[in-house]
C-alpha cells in the first residue's frame, strides 16, 4: 500500500505498529513526505481551533430531564393486546344483537326476522304481546257500546291483526294456522311460502275467521311460536254500513217510482229520458250493493295476516344414530359459526376503524410524546 495513503492515519495514531514503523521509515527517508505530514498536522490543528471558535449552543436540559422524570404511560405488550381485545369485544357486543337472538327470558322478545323488512326487527315488551287481552277488551267495549232499546244499532266492526311469529318448524306452524282456520269456521284466503330449510324459510298466510272468534284465533296463532311483532286494529264501520243501507233503500224506492213513471210514459222522448235515469239509478244501486257485500264480509270475518319464520339452523346435520357423526357435525357447525363470527367481527373492527383507530393512534402518539 502507498505510504501516502496511511499518512493521516499514522498522524492520528490509528495504524498498527508494523505499519506505523513503515511510515516512520518513509518519513525519515523522504523529506517531501515529511513536509506533507507537517502540513497535515497544521491543518488538523487549525481545524480543531476552528471548531472551538464556533458558536455552538450549550442550553440547559431541564425541560428534557423533566420529561424523562415524568411518570409515563408505557403499556406492556400484553396491555396493548388486552386493549385490542377490549376494543374488539366492545365492537362485538355492539353487534351482538344482530348476530343472535336474545333469550326470551331476558324480559322481551328481540328477534331478527328473516328478510321481511327493516322494521321487522324490534323489541316487543311482554306486556304488550297479549293481543288476546286487547281483543277481548274490544269485545267488552263493543257490548257496552250497543244501545239497548228500540233504536238498537248493531255495531259493525272490521277487525284486523298482523302478527309475526318465529317458529321452530315452519311446516308444522303452517299446519297449525290451517287448523285454527278450520276449528273456528274460517279459511286461509292467501298463502305463500319461501326459502329453503337452511335459508330462513318463511311463510305468509292470510287467515279469515268469524269476528266472534277473532280473539281466540289470534291467541292460538300467537301460541305457535315466539311473537316478534303484533299489531291489531279495530275499525268501527257502523256509520258506513248504515249509510249504505239507507242510500240503498232510497235508491230502490226511487227505482220503483221511476219504473212506474216509465210504465206511464207514452212519448218516445219521455221514455228515453226515464230509461236513462233508471239506468243511472241501477248503476248506483249495484255500486252500493258491492260496498254492502264488502262491508258485510269485513264485519263478519276478521282478517289475521300471519308471517311465520323458521329459526335459522346452521348446517344441521342429518339425523344419525352414531354419536361420533353427530359430534363431528356439531364440531364442524361450531367451527363454521366461530369462523363466521370472527369474520363478522373483523369486518366490524375494520368498519369501525374511523372511530377506534384515531384513539389508538392518539394514545400511541401521546405515549411516545411523553417519553
Amino acid at each position, binding site marked *: 500500500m502507498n505510504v*501516502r*495513503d*496511511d*499518512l*493521516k*492515519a499514522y498522524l*492520528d495514531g*490509528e495504524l498498527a505498529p508494523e505499519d506505523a514503523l513503515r511510515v516512520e521509515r518513509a518519513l525519515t527517508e523522504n523529506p517531501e513526505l515529511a513536509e*506533507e505530514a507537517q*502540513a*497535515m498536522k*497544521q*491543518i*488538523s*490543528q*487549525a*481545524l*480543531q*481551533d*476552528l*471548531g*472551538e*471558535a*464556533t*458558536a*455552538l*449552543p*450549550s*442550553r440547559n*436540559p431541564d*425541560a*428534557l*430531564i423533566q*420529561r*424523562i*422524570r415524568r411518570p409515563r404511560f408505557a403499556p406492556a405488550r400484553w396491555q396493548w393486546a388486552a386493549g385490542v381485545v377490549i376494543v374488539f369485544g366492545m365492537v362485538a357486543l355492539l353487534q351482538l344483537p344482530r348476530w343472535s337472538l336474545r333469550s326470551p327470558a331476558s324480559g322481551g322478545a328481540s328477534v331478527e326476522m328473516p328478510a321481511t323488512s327493516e322494521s321487522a326487527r324490534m323489541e316487543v315488551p311482554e306486556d304488550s304481546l297479549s293481543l288476546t287481552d286487547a281483543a277481548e277488551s274490544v269485545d267488552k267495549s263493543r257490548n257496552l257500546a250497543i244501545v239497548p232499546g228500540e233504536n238498537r244499532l248493531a255495531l259493525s266492526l272490521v277487525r284486523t291483526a298482523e302478527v309475526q311469529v318465529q317458529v321452530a318448524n315452519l311446516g308444522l306452524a303452517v299446519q297449525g294456522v290451517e287448523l285454527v282456520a278450520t276449528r273456528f269456521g274460517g279459511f286461509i284466503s292467501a298463502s305463500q311460502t319461501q326459502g329453503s330449510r337452511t335459508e330462513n324459510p318463511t311463510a305468509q298466510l292470510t287467515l279469515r275467521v268469524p269476528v266472534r272468534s277473532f280473539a281466540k284465533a289470534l291467541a292460538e296463532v300467537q301460541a305457535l311460536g315466539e311473537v316478534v311483532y303484533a299489531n291489531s286494529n279495530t275499525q268501527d264501520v257502523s256509520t258506513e254500513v248504515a249509510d249504505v243501507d239507507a242510500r240503498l233503500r232510497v235508491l230502490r224506492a226511487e227505482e220503483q217510482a221511476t219504473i212506474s213513471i216509465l210504465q206511464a210514459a207514452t212519448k218516445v222522448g219521455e221514455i228515453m229520458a226515464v230509461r236513462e235515469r233508471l239506468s243511472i239509478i241501477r248503476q248506483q244501486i249495484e255500486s252500493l250493493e258491492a260496498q254492502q257485500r264488502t262491508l258485510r264480509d269485513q264485519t263478519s270475518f276478521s282478517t289475521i295476516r300471519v308471517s311465520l319464520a323458521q329459526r335459522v339452523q346452521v348446517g344441521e346435520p342429518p339425523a344419525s344414530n352414531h354419536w361420533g357423526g353427530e359430534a363431528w357435525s356439531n364440531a364442524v357447525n361450531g367451527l363454521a359459526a366461530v369462523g363466521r363470527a370472527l369474520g363478522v367481527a373483523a369486518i366490524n373492527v375494520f368498519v369501525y376503524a374511523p372511530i377506534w383507530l384515531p384513539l389508538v393512534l392518539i394514545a400511541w402518539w401521546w405515549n*411516545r410524546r411523553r*417519553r
Partner: protein
Amino acid sequence: MNELANQAARGDRDAMTRIVTEHYPFVIRFCARRIGSQVAEDAAQETFLVAWRTIRKFDHRSSFRTWLLGIAHNVCRNLARKRKIEMTYEHAWTERLPDAPTPENTSVDRIALRHSLTKLTAEQREVVVMHELEGLSYEETATILEIPVGTVKSRLNAAFQRLRQLLCVEAGR
C-alpha cells in the same frame, strides 16, 4: 457509564437523568454541527428520548457515547429531511463565536481553510468534522456512520490531501 446505562435500562430515571446531564452538551454540539444551532435543541431532545425508549437494546458492543451519537446522527438526518435542511456540516465552522480567541501561532489561514472545507465532498466533510472537531476515533466514526473503518481512513486521508492542495492554491493567490 455502562452501569449507568444498565440502571437506565431497568427504568431508573435518576440514572437516565445523570446520562442526560453528562452527555447533553456534547450531543447538542454534535447536532448543531450537522443541522445548525436553531434546530439542535430539538434534535438533542429527540436523541435522548429515543435513547430512553431504546436503552434496553444497547448491547455494549460499542461505547455508550458512540451508541448515543449514532442515535443523534440518525435523528439529525431525519430532522434535516423533515425540515428540508441540507446537512453540509458548514455550521461546524460558520457560526463563529464573537469573542473566540484567534490563535496567533497557526500557519494556516482560517478564512482559506473555511473556503477549502466547502470544496470537500459531503462524505469527506462528515469524517473531518467527526474526527477533527468532535475528536472521535476512526472506529467510533465508522460505527456511527455505519461504514467500514478502512473507508473512514481513506476518506479522511483524501480529505486532508485535498485540503492541503486547496490551501496551497489559496496561499498562491
